[in-house]
């Protein structure tokens, strides 16, 4: 029992932190309430440490736990830096001016608790080997985020966004729940490995296909893929920017982990995925990339641009899912590419969103009026060099500029797609990367080359220095992590190595370096 619990150590750490934070957040003492952010940070870091020591799990992708959970906790920590202090700023300020504390009105502790719950859900997805577990984990990711959106800002449009997000999320959940039910009906078990065994033994019937496709489509809501993408821009724009950053990472990660597990049940055999599943994913991938990118080109709000680009990035990653683990070679492994991409996307995404939160122009602490439109960004590199350049680096990386992190991430997707023979899809991917350059470069040119409007309030640096730190750390990571490309990529490959391809983690051509004769 205790051994089985070992795979849940990070989640347990998060859970304990959640309980503490909920209580501490209601304390009358300002110091205690402020401490809740630090406690959350400590809990996240503890989870990160425990995640690195995760043992092999069980199920279809047992090696994934350490990498996935460490990534979730690591990026989660960066996101926490952005989010810390975002909620209840106005209320806390009024308390300092002498208003009496009313626990009913304080939401700060809850906010951190919801964040931790959601993060816990993402981690649980990585370890799932049962449809019910997977469903609960996915909902544990999403339910807190609905509330986080609502309480993130006092603006009305945050409430509107939360309502939309909730109802459409419910529809998405219903879709994959229906899919799960059909899968259970077809395979007679809720265990993912059990389903895989059944499929391998007795083939995949129409009922099973219907279940698979509905599950995939439902989970597409989490990753903001077409046709479940409609909410994305409205919700990201409505929520406070730190929460938008969170939405772009956590549900997407959970969704991709879930998709990898669901699709693993049918497996990538000699000819790749079974045709219906492949077609589903292919159409979704191509549409998602294209729709995300073309809609992004029309936006003037940076948050909406990043929202649609988040849609597009999901489309890119789906290419890895179609490619699958390949024959185990590092550059053929699409699943490893997804895991690596999620990490990279998490980092550069935090950089871009955090930069937006670093400058405030409003006087109302509940509505800081941070950077939103391309016009707001004008001259950022000149007025706030640190934030501006971190943003430029992150966006260049999102664009996939060589040498930066995003390039290596995309490279792996391309190579896995080519190895799997999905040439057409890879061409679509390439075309979309080119379209993406259009709107990313608009962000960069605003920040680097244009001069700010004289009439416009230049704003001031946010008092919450965690945001600046997160922004700078992400910007630097985009530059520095490529140096660790080899080890990180090997870690992601090892994470998805299964029994059939145990050699995935091996060094490519290692024998050649070890003995030159082998090269002849």
């Amino acid at each position, binding site marked *: 029992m205790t051994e089985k619990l070992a795979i849940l150590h990070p989640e347990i750490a998060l859970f304990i932190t959640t309980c503490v934070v909920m209580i501490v957040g209601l304390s009358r003492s300002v110091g205690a309430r402020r401490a809740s952010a630090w406690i959350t940070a400590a809990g996240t870091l503890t989870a990160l440490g425990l995640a690195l020591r995760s043992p092999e799990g069980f199920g279809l992708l047992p090696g994934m736990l350490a990498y996935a959970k460490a990534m979730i906790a690591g990026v989660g920590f960066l996101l926490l830096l952005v989010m810390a202090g975002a909620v209840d700023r106005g209320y806390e300020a009024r308390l300092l001016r002498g208003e009496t504390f009313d626990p009913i009105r304080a939401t700060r502790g809850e906010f951190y608790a919801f964040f931790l719950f959601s993060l816990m859900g993402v981690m649980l997805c990585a370890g799932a080997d049962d449809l019910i577990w997977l469903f609960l984990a996915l909902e544990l990711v999403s339910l807190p985020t609905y509330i986080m959106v609502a309480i993130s800002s006092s603006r009305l449009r945050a409430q509107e966004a939360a309502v939309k997000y909730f109802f459409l999320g419910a529809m*998405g959940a219903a*879709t994959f729940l229906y899919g799960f039910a059909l899968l259970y009906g077809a395979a007679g078990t809720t265990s993912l490995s059990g389903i895989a065994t059944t499929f391998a033994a007795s083939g995949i019937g129409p009922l099973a296909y*219907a279940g698979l496709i509905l599950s995939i489509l439902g989970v597409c809501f989490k990753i903001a893929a077409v046709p479940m993408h409609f909410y994305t821009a409205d919700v990201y724009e409505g929520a406070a920017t730190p929460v938008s950053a969170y939405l772009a990472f956590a549900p997407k990660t959970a969704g991709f982990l879930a998709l990898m597990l669901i699709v693993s049940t049918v497996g990538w055999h000699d000819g790749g995925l079974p045709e219906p599943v492949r077609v589903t994913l292919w159409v979704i991938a191509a549409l998602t990339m294209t729709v995300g990118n073309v809609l992004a080109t029309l936006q003037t709000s940076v948050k909406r641009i990043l929202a649609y680009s988040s849609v597009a990035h999901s489309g890119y990653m789906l290419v890895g899912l179609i490619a699958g683990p390949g024959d185990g070679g590092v550059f053929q492994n699409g699943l490893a590419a997804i895991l690596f991409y999620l990490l990279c996307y998490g980092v550069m995404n935090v950089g871009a969103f955090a930069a937006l939160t670093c400058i405030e122009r409003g006087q109302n602490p509940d509505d800081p009026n941070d950077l939103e439109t391309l016009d707001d960004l004008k001259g950022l590199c000149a007025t706030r060099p640190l934030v501006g350049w971190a943003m430029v680096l992150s966006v260049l990386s999102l664009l996939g500029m060589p040498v930066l992190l995003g390039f290596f991430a995309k490279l792996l997707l391309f190579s896995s797609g080519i190895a799997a023979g999905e040439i057409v899809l890879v061409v679509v991917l390439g075309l979309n990367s080119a379209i993406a350059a259009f709107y990313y470069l608009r962000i960069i040119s605003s920040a680097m080359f244009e001069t700010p409007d004289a009439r416009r309030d230049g704003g001031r640096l946010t008092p919450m220095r965690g945001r600046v730190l997160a922004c700078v750390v992400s910007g630097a990571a985009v530059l520095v992590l490529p140096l660790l490309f080899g080890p990180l990529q090997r870690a992601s490959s090892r994470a998805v190595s299964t029994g059939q391809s145990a050699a995935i983690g091996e060094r490519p051509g290692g024998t*050649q370096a070890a003995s030159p004769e082998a090269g002849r």
Partner: protein
Amino acid sequence: MDAIATILPTFLAAEPAGAHAPGAQVGSGPPWAILIPLLPLLASALCGVCAMLRVKSKAPAFIVVAMLGASFLATAAVWLQGGGPGPMAGASVAHGWDWIQFAWGDGPGQALIANFSLYLDSLTLLWMLFVTGLATLIALYASEYMSHDVGQGYNRFFAYFALFVFAMSCLVMGDNLLMLFLGWEGVGLCSYLLIGYFYKKPSAVAAAKKAFIVNRIGDLGLVLGVFTTFVTFGTIEYAPLFEMVGAGVDGSGHALHGSWQATWIPIFFMIGAFGKSAQLPLYVWLPDAMEGPTPVSALIHAATMVTAGVYLIARMYPIFLLDDAHTALTIVAWTGALTALLAATIGMAQFDIKRIMAYSTVSQLGYMFAGLGVLTTTGAAFHVFTHAFFKATLFLCCGAVMHGFAGQLDLRKLSGVAFMKGWGVVGVAMLVGCLNLAGFPFTAGYFSKDMILAETFVTPGSVIGGASMVGWILLLTAGLTAYYTFRVFFRVFVGPQMYEPGEEHGHAPHRHDHGPGHPPGHGEHDLADARDQAQKDEPGGAHPHGHDFHPHAPGLAINAVLAILAVASVLAALTYFIHKPDHGWVGAMVHHSTAHFGGLDAHHGDEAAHASHGSFLGLDPHKAMYYVSAVIGMVGIFVAWLLHYRGRTGAAVAPADRLLGALGPIPRWAQQKWFVDELYDFVIVKPLWALSNVFHVIDKLIVDGLVNLAGLTPRGLGAGLRPSQNGLLHSYAAGMAGGIVFILLVVWAVS
């Protein structure tokens, strides 16, 4: 990396370093050797932090000196551990971390592996010892030299400086050609940044651009060389590469002798080396590079970076020897000799002492290339080694003069500096440097130059075409070198004491009229500036010092560094007498590296081979050259004494001027650098300019039109999709439902 691996065992689980060490012949080196490049990188980053914190003290200088010193000690430790103070036996690879590992198959040539690893052998260590050692000393010197910039560019200067050392160590120590390329471009970048250090000065910016662009031409060669190497051998890692080259086969086992690769790979590398090491026709950037601060000129553009080309050829020497016709090496030898001669003739006619030193650098690099070309890697490496010390000394002396006399570098405006109060150390150091450069008997420069000269006559013309002709050119150049070197010494450092200060902040010579009013006792200085107006590159301005300029003698840091370097220049000669059978310590180091294949070994293998030596007028070149070059050097010095010292009463005039009439326009042409820059401008720059205008029109009309058309497509598509994003909950829900149905239909239709 290993430290991280212990912290994150499950996550990264880097294999132990040993697992990556290639082959049986190449062992694994100490992993901490990676500190040698990383310490300067850290220093650079810390200087960046200093810049961000707007540090207004000399802290960055001390950080850099300390880190570079530590890097030097690490180099020495690697060397001592590996077999020092003698040469190291064989090579080893110190694995830093995995960097690039692409594989697209299991066959040969289907993986690109370039790790951040260091190739440690004697050649590497020879280079790194003087690179890190000199860098430490010059950083110390710069801490005083750059003191006028404290709080402004000081942080930036030292950040670049340390970054340069990092890049140089990547270049020299990398265990694969990609790391060499990284370092190669890195030193190019740092060179660009440092030449353009005074970025408000148009001439500095122009010089920086020129250096960068001219180097790109060479880099094209290098890149082609790396590509062809990879295509031919299927690897760019030295260890397997040299093993294949040693066996004379390519990656798939075919013999290489007589193949096109055996001819062309060396030529590609050679072009790269010509760019970086300022050889004909790509030497034009180096004299202009003197716009950078003098410590930079000393370190980068005299002692270390410009020898990267020599290093490249020495490192790749086995590949150069694959070609039985020695095409590349013959070109190298001839280019080296012609460059040496051309640069020396230009150097003879210049008036700016730093520029003279720059041309002498080009000229001496020519010697090194000639040495490589006539199969004496030992001679080339030995000359690199001695040259590094004495040329650094010379540049730093010039820098001290420039620093003390407010940027004055014109040899017609300074005289007798060595006898002024506080300038003794500079004078002595300059004398030591000049003697070395002139090849005065028993100096280090004398021995190293001799070795190259002798070998040009030893190497038979059947192996390297016209080797003895190369020797004659180099002998002539040796005389010219002695002359122009001592021209500087006799004009500036001895003779009657007088001076005229330069522009205060100018770091290149600005020649202006200053009018009378200098302290009495300094003689007359109504110097004729008419001639100078021709080379004046900036408009005049009021002289900031007015009437009471006092040269400030160098302080402790500059004097200490000069003293150390002067002593080192002298002591470098002693290394010739250690390991005598290998032609000195440097020879021993070279013999135990990949550069040992050719040259002396091939020809000194046995007595029979010895007998087939070429000869110098019927004498054994090795013995004869000791006397011949000594005599030539002293004749050059004597001529300089005759023309520039004897009977000279002022700074501006010298007995040499009487000869000017007899020589006609030749000195003026030489001073104008034989109009090479103008030639390049006319032949290359102008046509390119015209062509680019044509392309500009094409670009505007056709390409932009197509691009705009292509750009409209996604926007139009987006505009079509836009109505779907109307913000209404129920329409979104309908869209989702419709999408689900659509996909189910597609799947149903397809399967």
